[in-house]
C-alpha cells in the first residue's frame, strides 16, 4: 500500500524529509514525517486527533520548531526560513483559526496577501474574485463581521494573492456547515485545477479523500499510510484506524 517516498518524489515541487518537530523541547509531535507534492497535485493529510497533521503543515511553513529533517521547494532547501521569506519563495499558508485580519476590510486583507507584489494587486484581485465572486461586491466590508465560511474564502483568497506555487491549507472545512464544507472542497479543487499545487490537512477525511490526488494518513507523528485518495478511502486498515465507525455507518 505504502508508496516509496524517496523514489516517487525526487523531482517533487515540495518535499519534506524525515521531519522531527514539536512545540516544546523534548516533546516531539512529529517523529520523522515524509511528504512530497508534485507540481499540480492536490495532496491531503488526514489522521486521528493529535496525530500531528497540522503540525506537519506548520513545520513545513516554519511555524513549528523543526529539530531535524529538511523541507525543499523546487529542490532548494527552505527549512527554517522566516514566514515572509517562504511566501516570497512561493508558498501560501492558510491557518485553521484566526485566518483573516478582522479589523481590516476584505480588500485590505487581500492587499496584505499581495504585500510583496503590490503592482500585481489588480491582476491577482481579478483572479481570486473569479473564484470567489462575492468578495468583489463586499470588498469594503470589515473581515471581522464575516461568517465562518466567508472568512475561509477571504483567507484562501489572501493566500492566493501572491500567486503561490504551493498552497498549504489547515483544515479549511473546520467549523463550517455541511453545505459550506462541500463548497470549500469544490473551491479547493478549482484552485488546484487553476494550476496551484495544494497540500491540505482535513478532519473531514472522507470528503478530503474524494477530492485529493494523493493522501497521507498520519498516526502518532509518523506516516501510517499513503496512496491515492480512492485507494485510501477503501483501504480497510485506514477505515479501521481513522474513518472508523462513520465509514461503516455509511
Amino acid at each position, binding site marked *: 500500500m505504502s508508496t516509496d517516498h524517496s523514489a516517487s518524489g525526487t523531482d517533487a515541487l515540495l518535499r519534506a524529509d524525515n521531519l522531527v518537530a514539536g512545540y516544546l523541547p523534548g516533546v516531539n509531535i512529529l517523529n520523522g514525517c515524509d511528504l512530497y507534492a508534485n507540481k499540480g497535485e492536490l495532496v491531503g493529510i488526514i489522521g486521528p486527533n*493529535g496525530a500531528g497533521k497540522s503540525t506537519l503543515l506548520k513545520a513545513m511553513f516554519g511555524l513549528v520548531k523543526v529539530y531535524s529533517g529538511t523541507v525543499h521547494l523546487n529542490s532548494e532547501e527552505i527549512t527554517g526560513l522566516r514566514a515572509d521569506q517562504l511566501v516570497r519563495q512561493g508558498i501560501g499558508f492558510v491557518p485553521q483559526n484566526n485566518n483573516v485580519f478582522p479589523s481590516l476590510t476584505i480588500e485590505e486583507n487581500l492587499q496584505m496577501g499581495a504585500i510583496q507584489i503590490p503592482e500585481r494587486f489588480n491582476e491577482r484581485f481579478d483572479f481570486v474574485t473569479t473564484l470567489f465572486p462575492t468578495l468583489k461586491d463586499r470588498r469594503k466590508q470589515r473581515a471581522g463581521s464575516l461568517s465562518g465560511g466567508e472568512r475561509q474564502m477571504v483567507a484562501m483568497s489572501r493566500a492566493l494573492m501572491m500567486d503561490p506555487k504551493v498552497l498549504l491549507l489547515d483544515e479549511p472545512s473546520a467549523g463550517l456547515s455541511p453545505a459550506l464544507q*462541500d463548497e470549500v472542497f469544490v473551491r479547493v479543487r478549482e484552485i488546484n485545477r487553476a494550476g496551484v499545487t495544494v497540500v491540505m490537512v482535513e478532519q473531514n477525511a*472522507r470528503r478530503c479523500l474524494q477530492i485529493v490526488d494523493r493522501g497521507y494518513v498520519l498516526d502518532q507523528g509518523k506516516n501510517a499510510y499513503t496512496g491515492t485518495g480512492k485507494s485510501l478511502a477503501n483501504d480497510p486498515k485506514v477505515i479501521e484506524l481513522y474513518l472508523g465507525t*462513520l465509514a461503516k455507518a455509511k
Partner: protein
Amino acid sequence: MQELKSTPKRDAALAALASVPSIPGIKKPDPIIIADNVVRRFGGLTAVDVEHVEIQRGTITALIGPNGAGKTTFFNLLTGFDKPNSGNWTFNGKALAGIAPHKVARLGMVRTFQLTKALFRLSVMDNMRLGAKNQVGEGILRALLPFSWRSQEERITQRATELLTRFKLDSKADDFAAALSGGQRKLLEMARALMVDPELVMLDEPMAGVNPALTQSLLGHIKDLREQGMTVLFVEHDMDMVRDISDWVIVMAQGKVVAEGPPDSVMSNPAVIDAYLGAHHDQPLDEQE
C-alpha cells in the same frame, strides 16, 4: 471494535434511556441537567442556540459536532465560565444561570478544559490537593494554624494518592506538573476534578493530544466514573471513543442540537452524517459540479 462490557450501571443507564426516542431536545426520565433557550452570540455570530436539552443522570453522554459547532462554548455557559445572552438551565433542579463558576463546581458540576490547565509550578500532588472541597486550611486565619488543618491535609493527601495511583501518576506526585507529558496532564486534570467529589463530570476533549497508548486507560477511567455513580458529559471528536463509551450522544452543529440518541442510531442518522461528512456524503463531489 472491542466488546462492550455489561456492568450494572451501564445496564441501568441503557435501560433508563431505552424508551427515550431519538429526537433532538427530547425529555429524559431523570435529567441532571435541563437547559432551555440558551443563546450566546459573539458579535454577529451565534455560537450557541440550544432550545432544549436534558442530560440523563448516571449516564455517559457524548457531545459531538464539527469544530465551531458551539460545544465548548456550551460547556463554558453551563459551568458559568461564559455568560449567555439569554437562557436558563438547572442542575439537580437548581437554577444555574448567573451563578459564578466556582459555585457551580461546589454544587458538584466539575469540568476540565480542552487545553489542559495543569498548574505548572505546583507539584502534581499539590494540583490534586487543591481539588479537595471544604478545606479548613484554605481560610486565611486557619492557614496560620497548621495543627488545625494538618489532619485534614493528611486525609486529602491519602485520597489524592489513591487517585494518582489509579491514574498511574503516583510516581510523579512530587514533580512539578509542568514536567508531565500532554497526556499525563489530561489524566491529572481528570483526577484533580475527581478530588472535588463531583456528581457531574464535564470533560472537554479528554482524548485530544493523548498518546494512543494512554487512550485505553483514559477510556477505562471514564467508564469507571459512571460505575462510581457519577454522570459524565464529554466533548469528543474521536468517533470510536464516542461509540465505545457513551450511552447517549448529542450532536451539535452551528450552535444547535441537531440530533441525539444512542450512539448507533445517531451515527446512522442522516443529519449527523451531514454534520460530519457533508451533505451528499455518498456522492463523489465530481457529480455535483
